[in-house]
């Protein structure tokens, strides 16, 4: 094989989003097909699965293969790509009869509650019937085929990648509609008699043939891009055009004529007339046995590791090692933050991983927190017997400490100060030891630790929670080992005073799993929950009480909200210069952000309450509505930290090289991370996710506080959330200063 041919054949690249979507479609179909094939093996044989997966593979090949890479150089390659999308992928997808497998493959609740109302909507049914009518298919195919082959449209698609995507989507959709009456995927019914199918296919082929003939016999190059493109394989532009036309004419026509011949053969064959498909009988409802849901603690590898006595210790050991590295490197490494491992570990990697963990799992930082080692040491020394002062048992102090932490980060340029970074780690160990050497329980975690409060609040949005597996087991429990500890196994109970049967949500839960290990009934799990669902519920929570009576929790939420937006804004040009390296200006900036957040939240609550004439007090509405803004705050933090991780994360490679071998730090590491353009999209998606969770929580809360006038109570807080979201998007789209980070 020549090197040119080898290079052409090697020109594959999987488009990540399309690949992910097609893989998801394949998994959903496969899941549904497996269920259905057990119930109706005759209706869903293996070839249907193969056809659907083949259809998806055809779409992927059209987008990822050399056909796409050479589509702007060779009309023949572009034509082959279009044929894949028009005559290969659609019939294969439809032969898979995808509607039932996909519905069965999607989560049942989503299909019933999310899609169900739309699927049962008479107007949608009418639209569906109109769309799958043979006339619609024929016209759609004709419009797509002729419309996109007009030189101006074709050139537009060659010039613009967006229009090229639209062109491909149009071809795939129009062809799917065209092939529908031919395949009529089960359980759809034919709209025209069977004898019309060959004529229908011939009508489709007629258009294909005329267009192909124009390309083959034209004496000039129809699409100017190909006239000016460099020529490959010795083909002139006119020869390439004729070749593309021939491809369209011969294989393209065969795709219409072979099914037409097969349909004709079937019509003319002697024997019993083709049976009309019986109306599909309803599928039998599978007998559902009650099984315990997913529990991460019961999963084979991760669960066994987490439940083992050394599981958490191992995680803490790793984190302790990293903390030691930060301290040593911070005090002895290069003074520039961009070249120092301490700042890279803490500010680039540590923060991002902790927040990502919150969004995809739960409070894993506290689970692996090494700052509890001093507490364990204090216990061994017999210290820590006093009760934490009752007056300080709230989050007020913690809210203040979080604010101070945010301010100090900006005022003292901590991202660029390895010594200060190492100093903070040492101070953290010292503070944890001092507090826990005096007071019993996990007083430092519960009332003081700023990182812990961030994690606690953030974990209200997490999808995993330490929960009771079967409440009825707890009803008969008299020992309450989860709280008091297990005397037999010498396993301590919850040091944060959370009693599992009345624990609701992850606030104040460090994921230490002491309760799970102490429970003699093995009734504690790490269970999936709806993210942010706790934000609109307000049961009396163990050791926390009701959110409506906790203004300190609202204060923590406001500090996190203000910090999220102010912290990101401090990195963009209108604010960066005025905030950085000035304690006073940074304090004023954060105070203004906090005041603005508080005023906006209070105004929204007051306006909503007055408009809805809600019976709840202003204080209750304000406190609870403020908490619903937490998902947006966490999303803003996540988007901000992801930016740092994506742009400065790879610099860890040269920094590590320098730290361990003395090599000079000269540039970023391998660019395996998404670039700034890609990360902008990911940041915005994360922010969207936060807004939607906030809106959902606020809507549910409004329904709970004012059943009759929920929209009125909801509207002002939704407006505030939307304004914050827009402000966040604006900030994320500004060029961010990568202060003190190598990128």
């Amino acid at each position, binding site marked *: 094989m*020549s*090197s*040119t041919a080898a*290079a052409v054949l090697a*020109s594959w690249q999987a*488009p990540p989003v*399309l690949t992910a*979507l097609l893989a998801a*479609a394949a998994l959903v179909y496969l899941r549904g097909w497996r269920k259905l094939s057990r119930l109706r093996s005759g209706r869903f044989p293996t070839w249907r699965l193969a056809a659907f997966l083949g*259809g*998806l593979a055809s*779409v992927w090949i059209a987008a990822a293969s*050399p056909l796409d*890479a*050479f589509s*702007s150089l060779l009309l023949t390659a572009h034509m082959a790509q279009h044929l894949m999308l028009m005559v290969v992928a659609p019939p294969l*997808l439809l032969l898979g009869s*995808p*509607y039932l497998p*996909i*519905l069965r493959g999607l989560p049942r609740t989503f299909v019933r509650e999310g*899609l169900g*109302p*739309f*699927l*049962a909507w008479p107007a*949608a*049914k009418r*639209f*569906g*019937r109109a*769309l*799958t009518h043979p006339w619609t298919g024929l016209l759609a195919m004709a419009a797509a085929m002729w419309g996109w082959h007009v030189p101006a449209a074709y050139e537009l698609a060659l*010039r*613009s*990648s967006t229009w090229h*995507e*639209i062109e*491909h*989507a149009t071809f*795939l*959709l129009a062809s799917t509609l065209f092939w*529908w009456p031919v395949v009529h995927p089960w*359980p*759809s019914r034919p709209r025209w008699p069977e004898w019309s199918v060959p004529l229908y296919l011939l009508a489709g082929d007629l258009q294909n043939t005329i267009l192909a003939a124009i390309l083959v016999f034209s004496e000039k190059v129809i699409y100017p891009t190909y006239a000016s493109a*460099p020529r490959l394989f*010795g083909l002139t532009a006119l020869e390439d055009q004729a070749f593309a036309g021939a491809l369209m004419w011969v294989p393209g026509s065969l795709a219409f004529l072979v099914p037409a011949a097969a349909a004709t053969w079937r019509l003319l064959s002697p024997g019993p007339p083709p049976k009309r498909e019986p109306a599909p009988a309803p599928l039998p409802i599978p007998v559902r046995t009650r099984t315990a849901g997913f529990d991460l603690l019961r999963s084979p590898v991760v669960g066994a590791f987490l439940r083992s006595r050394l599981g958490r210790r191992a995680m803490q050991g790793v984190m302790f090692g990293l903390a030691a590295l930060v301290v040593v490197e911070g005090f002895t490494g290069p003074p520039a933050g961009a070249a120092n491992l301490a700042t890279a570990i803490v500010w680039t990697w540590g923060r991002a991983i902790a927040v990502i963990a919150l969004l995809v799992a739960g409070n894993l930082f506290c689970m692996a927190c090494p700052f509890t080692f001093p507490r364990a040491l204090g216990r061994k020394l017999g210290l820590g017997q006093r009760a934490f002062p009752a007056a300080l048992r709230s989050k007020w102090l913690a809210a203040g400490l979080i604010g101070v932490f945010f301010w100090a980060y900006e005022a003292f340029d901590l991202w660029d100060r390895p010594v200060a970074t190492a100093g903070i780690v040492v101070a953290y160990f010292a503070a944890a030891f001092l507090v826990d050497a005096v007071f019993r329980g996990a007083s430092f975690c519960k009332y003081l630790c700023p990182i812990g409060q961030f994690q606690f609040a953030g974990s209200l949005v997490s999808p995993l929670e330490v929960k009771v597996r079967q409440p009825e087991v707890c009803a008969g429990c008299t020992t309450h080992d989860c709280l008091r500890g297990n005397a037999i196994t010498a396993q301590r109970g919850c040091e944060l005073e959370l009693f599992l049967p009345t624990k609701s949500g992850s606030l104040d839960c460090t994921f230490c799993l002491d309760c799970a290990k102490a429970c003699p009934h093995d009734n504690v799990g790490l269970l999936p929950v709806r993210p942010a669902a706790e934000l609109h519920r307000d049961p009396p929570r163990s050791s926390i009480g009701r959110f409506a009576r906790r203004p300190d929790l609202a204060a923590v939420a406001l500090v996190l909200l203000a910090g999220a937006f102010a912290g990101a804004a401090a990195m963009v040009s209108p604010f960066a210069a005025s905030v950085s390296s000035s304690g006073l200006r940074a304090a004023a900036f954060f105070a203004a952000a906090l005041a603005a957040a508080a005023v906006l939240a209070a105004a929204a609550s007051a306006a909503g309450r007055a408009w809805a004439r809600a019976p709840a007090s202003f204080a209750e509405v304000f406190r609870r509505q403020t908490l619903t803004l937490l998902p947006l705050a966490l999303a803003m933090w996540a988007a901000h930290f992801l930016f740092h991780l994506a742009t400065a994360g790879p610099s860890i490679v040269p920094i590590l090289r320098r730290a361990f071998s003395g090599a000079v730090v000269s540039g970023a590491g391998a660019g395996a991370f998404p670039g*700034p*353009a890609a990360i*902008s*999209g990911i940041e*915005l*998606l994360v922010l969207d996710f936060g*807004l*939607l969770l906030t*809106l*959902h929580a606020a809507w549910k809360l409004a329904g709970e506080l004012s059943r009759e006038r929920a929209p009125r109570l909801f509207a002002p807080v939704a407006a505030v959330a939307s304004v914050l*979201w827009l402000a966040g*998007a604006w900030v994320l*789209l500004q060029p961010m200063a990568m202060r003190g980070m190598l990128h």
Partner: protein
Amino acid sequence: MRRTLALSAALLVWAAARTAFADGGRLRASEDVGAFRVAIFTAPEPVFAGRADVSVLVQDRASGEAVLDADVTLELLGPGGAQSVVTAGRHARNRLFYGAQVELAPGAWIAAARVRRGASEAVVRASFEVRDSRRAAVAWPYLSIPPCAVVLYAANRGLRNRERKRRSG
């Protein structure tokens, strides 16, 4: 209803296809110089400030065969005297091309592709305009997600309420 279900499946696939992207970029120059035929491409089209792809196709002038063992460097001259020189490696997508990802500021740019193989050398220049940031263009699909989700949610609730009333009344 089942047709609507099927339509949903078709729409899912359509949505997947929507994200397919084209490749190649726009041809900026194509010249025969010395022993080579050199073409310069830029992507995306139009080129916006930020990261862009500059790629080069080198062919043997006599045979038209792609030359895959040349040394190709790209010299970029931008607005305000901005200058950068990058070595173009084999393009990640189209293996016949040499390419490099470069950061470009808004304004007029000249890309010079210097091709060397053995004693043969050729330089081809292309000029192109880099537009100001396309942040809004990049952002709008993401910014449209929450409004669409809210509208769908509202429609879902409306339909459910209507169905509930129909059943009860």
